[in-house]
């Protein structure tokens, strides 16, 4: 027999086994069905991007369907003046608002989440570990509007009643706090996984050299888990930057917040900014998109903001992939 040739079944005397026609046919159909489903999903995502881009970019090109003037890139992306009724379309306040509120939220949520992850994975007794994991998984699934209600009815009145008797408390501080509470469970879950996946030999090795529990965690475990912790933080950031509902309920929705800041003569401008009603890309979209006529510059700019959000999220997802790959290298 030639090398590499399978002996035919018949040669061994066994009956020749063959798939029935039906089997082969249904395999073909299944293949097509799977292909169709995946094409549909890819098509939907592509379609959304195309739709957003075509409407968003229409702000800057004179295309059919536009009902107003064509805007320049600089008057949209470099101006802090948002007053659509007087023909000003600067979206810097929203970009700054989105970055500010998510940055602040991450500043609160990342350390809290990572340390909780250490606690669950390395310090908590077994019963508490199981309980905490389940609680975190539940918290991830709570709809954001619930967090918003909590912020609106509990946190805001508490903050204005306690520290700021004269001013409304809505603004970055409370919005960031609510966002932080929202993304902490995600960061906790992922960082718990990160610490649990580290070999115990690292922990033992550090402590065998005379590290205290805390020194082993700080000097060995956290650095060893760093790529996965970064991934956790970026995923949290991705969830925070796209969040509209909870933020809209507590941030105050004031597109002119930057102008307000400029005029203020406060001696602690940063603190003042924390409690100034502001707006973000998402909150502004939710507020205004339903009320603007299609094809108007106002409407087009809102789509451009949506496109910007889409691209920002995309960059974050790609960054997560990159970080995830870094851990294997």
């Amino acid at each position, binding site marked *: 027999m030639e090398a590499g040739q399978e002996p035919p079944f018949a040669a061994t005397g066994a009956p020749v086994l063959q798939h029935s026609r039906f089997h082969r046919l249904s395999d073909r159909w299944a293949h097509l069905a799977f292909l169709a489903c995946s094409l549909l999903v890819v098509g939907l995502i592509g379609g959304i991007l195309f739709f957003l881009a075509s409407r968003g970019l229409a702000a800057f090109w004179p295309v059919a369907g536009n009902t107003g003037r064509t805007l320049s890139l600089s008057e949209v992306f470099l101006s802090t003046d948002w007053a659509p009724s007087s023909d000003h379309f600067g979206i810097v306040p929203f970009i700054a608002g989105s970055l500010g509120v998510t940055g602040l939220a991450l500043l609160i949520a990342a350390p809290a989440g990572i340390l909780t992850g250490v606690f669950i994975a390395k310090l908590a007794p077994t019963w508490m570990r199981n309980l905490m994991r389940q609680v975190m998984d539940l918290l991830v699934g709570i709809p954001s509007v619930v967090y918003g209600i909590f912020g609106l009815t509990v946190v805001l009145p508490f903050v204005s009643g306690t520290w700021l008797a004269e001013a409304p408390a809505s603004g970055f501080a409370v919005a960031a706090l609510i966002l932080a509470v929202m993304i902490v469970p995600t960061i906790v879950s992922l960082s718990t996984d990160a610490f649990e996946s580290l*070999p*115990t*030999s*690292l*922990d*033992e*090795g*550090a*402590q*065998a*050299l*005379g*590290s*205290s529990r805390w*020194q082993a965690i700080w*000097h*060995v475990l956290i*650095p*060893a888990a760093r790529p996965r912790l970064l991934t956790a933080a970026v995923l949290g950031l991705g969830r925070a930057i796209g969040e509209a509902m909870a933020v809209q309920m507590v941030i105050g929705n004031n597109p002119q917040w930057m102008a307000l800041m400029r005029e203020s003569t406060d001696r602690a401008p940063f603190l003042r900014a924390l409690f100034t009603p502001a707006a973000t890309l998402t909150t502004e979209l939710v507020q205004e998109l339903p009320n603007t006529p299609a094809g108007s510059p106002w409407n087009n700019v809102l789509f451009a903001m949506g496109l910007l959000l889409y691209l920002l999220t995309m960059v974050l997802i790609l960054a997560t992939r990159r970080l995830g790959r870094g851990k294997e290298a």
Partner: protein
Amino acid sequence: MLTPTLPETKPIKLSVRNMAFSYGTKKVLDGLSMDIHAERVTAIIGPSGCGKSTFLKCFNRIHEVSSTVNVSGDMLIDGVDIYRGGIDEVDLRRRVGMVFQKPNPFPKSIYENVAFGPRLFGVTDRSSLDGIVEDALRKAALWDEVKDRLKESATGMSGGQQQRLCIARALAVNPEVLLMDEPCSALDPIATAKIEDLITDLKENLTIVIVTHNMQQAARVSDYTAFFWLGRLVEMDLTERIFTTPRVQMTEDYITGRFG
């Protein structure tokens, strides 16, 4: 009588009297007594599950990291009880270093791995650290191989190099005792030979206790050998006697491969 009878010039470093060890209600070690001499290599052999690794980990209390354990009887280092003598466990672990079954370098540079211990104990001065790192790497016979790539990651080294790095890391805090828990079980024969040579060099000024499942290794590197079976010490004697004229039949059966 389970202690060797040859004249011994080195002092007793570690001393165990009627020691028992349990996880919860499960008794793992019972009725153990032995003396371990300074500047000697003591090997602990026995079939898997006989408690030899558990016993080793009692000397630096490292099992306390992951579980609640109960040790009764006496375990002394220089005459002071490890568990009840008021020794701080961090200080104990500085004095009693450990090398594990699988090399466990930290995901840091070669230099930072060795400098880790000294830094913990407050050495921050760069030139002292450099000196300690070089000295430890030389003692671990690794300096010539890594001196030009101290800044590279330790996880990129071969298994044998990683294990010698772990030995260097343990030596950098200047321990009095070195515990080795099957240090060659993950290594190839050449790397194993290097570690064995190293053990012989290191006993000049260290007390070494090595757990091994490899009887040839015990015969090659150790001065004393203790044979464990089911959590008990069956026999302990000079290595050459254990391997030529053991007093207990069970020891002979194990060494000649009749069980285990």
